[in-house]
């Protein structure tokens, strides 16, 4: 079986990665989208495998936040990639591979869900409890007795927001997509509506956090975390 660069792709997507300098010897991680895309168009297996390794799991996870059906979430991943390969001679220029993959993934998944009557025509989610997030509590755990309270609070953040707001926050914080890209992926008519929703989501989230400012914000300073 083919195991191309799995460690490396975990590495590049790790948001905890410290320091800015790319490490010599790990330089494929800096392969630009443009070059990878050219590779796919030229029919290079390496480029294709690289993109699959970088994104297949991420797309799958994205799908499982929208539908309960894990097999379907996987099938759509394959659909998106197989379509890309079958059209490789007609592919145009793109700015971001991630943007391309996420847009087509979401579109295809929703189309199937609607066709199978899993969701109504004007709905975007089969699951309503997807895209949940928390503020990682590990580093409090070692030093404070408040762990249980903090955990509860942190789960509350995600419970309070509507799923659409949680999705936009996920794309923005975890995938680091721009307003413009998010607008394209989530099917907003323009950049401004994407930004408005994101602002609303961030304000709501901050509001919840603010109520518990004492726990969240003061502790780290006392503990010299920052």
């Amino acid at each position: 079986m083919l195991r191309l660069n799995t460690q490396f792709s975990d590495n590049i997507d790790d948001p905890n990665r410290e320091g800015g300098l790319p490490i010599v010897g790990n330089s494929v991680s800096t392969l630009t989208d443009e070059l990878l895309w050219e590779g796919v168009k030229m029919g290079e297996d390496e480029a294709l495998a690289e993109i699959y390794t970088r994104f297949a799991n991420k797309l799958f996870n994205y799908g499982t936040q929208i539908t309960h059906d894990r097999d379907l979430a996987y099938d759509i991943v394959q659909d998106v990639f197989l379509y890309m390969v079958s059209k490789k001679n007609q592919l145009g220029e793109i700015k971001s591979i991630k943007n391309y993959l996420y847009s087509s993934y979401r579109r295809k998944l929703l189309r199937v869900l609607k066709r199978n009557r899993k969701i109504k025509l004007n709905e975007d989610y089969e699951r309503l409890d997807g895209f949940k997030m928390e503020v990682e509590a590990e580093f409090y755990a070692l030093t404070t007795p408040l762990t249980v309270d903090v955990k509860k609070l942190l789960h509350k953040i995600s419970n309070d927001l509507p799923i659409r707001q949680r999705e936009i926050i996920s794309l923005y914080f975890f995938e680091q997509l721009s307003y413009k890209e998010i607008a394209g992926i989530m099917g907003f008519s323009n950049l401004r509506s994407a930004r408005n929703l994101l602002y609303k989501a961030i304000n709501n989230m901050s509001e919840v956090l603010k109520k518990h400012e004492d726990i969240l914000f003061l502790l780290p300073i006392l503990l010299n975390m920052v």
Partner: protein
Amino acid sequence: MEFEPKNESDFLKNTFFIKWVSAPNDHSNRYWEKWCRNNPDKMKMFNNARLIAKNLKPVEENRIDEERFYKGLDQLILANHKSDEVKSSRHYAADKPGIFTWGRSIAASILLLGMMMVVYSIWFDKPKDVMLSMSIPIINKEAPKGIKKTVLLPDGSKVVLNSGSSISYPETFGDTRQIDLKGQAFFDVERDTARPFIVKSGELETRVLGTSFDIKAYEEQNMLHVAVVTGKVKVTTGNGIESHITPEEAVFYNRKTNALSKDFYDYELLVGWKEKILKFQDAKYEEVFEQLSNWYDVTFIIEKDVKLEGDYTGRFEDQSLKNVLMGMEYSAGIKFEIQGHKILVKSKVK
């Protein structure tokens, strides 16, 4: 447009801030350091926002189970080859089902490609090249100092010339696609298995079928390199040393010692120039000035009392010369004075 946050949310709405928290680089580090120095009253807010952005995590991270993942990848590679067969009549061993998965057969086909290249290098030798150069007009393209240039070759391959570089090639290609390079260029070669693509640059000859790679071979510089981005490349030196390199790898040739060494490389350091990224890692100041003078078409004049000791490390993306020099002044014990195309290098302490 100054960034003036009123609360934590304003930080979180700033895309540049979010990118910095999750994937900082030299540039953004410098920016936020400076921002903090200028806004000491907003430090609490800044730290809070950073904490939230850093520790916010998805609750679920579902992954495809491993077996399915590799099955999916194999399926994809298979489809990739299937749509190839229409264009070329290459045959792959895995037409027989079972035994090998497609993943393995890639390795086999890469090996095959390597062997084909060796065969080419034996069969298609010098005589034909000589005949070629006699009958077909030669084209010269040059990128002067301060300018980068993209050249499209007769076979559809793309060459990006770095400043102060030139290439020459026949108007139409024969059995081989032969290019002469002085200076530095990035090649994106159209795949043509029947006609190897050969670049001669100083002591190095680089031979490929269809890949993308970077070659640096300035006449006045001691170090040459060939760095591969995609595909497979064979490099031969004037004294007959041969090396095969694959993505992530580069060969470095030292003119003083005639030595060829292979190593992994830092993409931005070697190929970043193509995306307007200037990067120095523990570079000698002489090298930095040499590169800057080529890049911006200026001459550096170093004053007598200036001692250029130590190394310089820095990264600039699409910056003006003035900004680059300012960045260097910040971290090195020197200052610059710009006089048209001349840059005076002065000592900071007077």
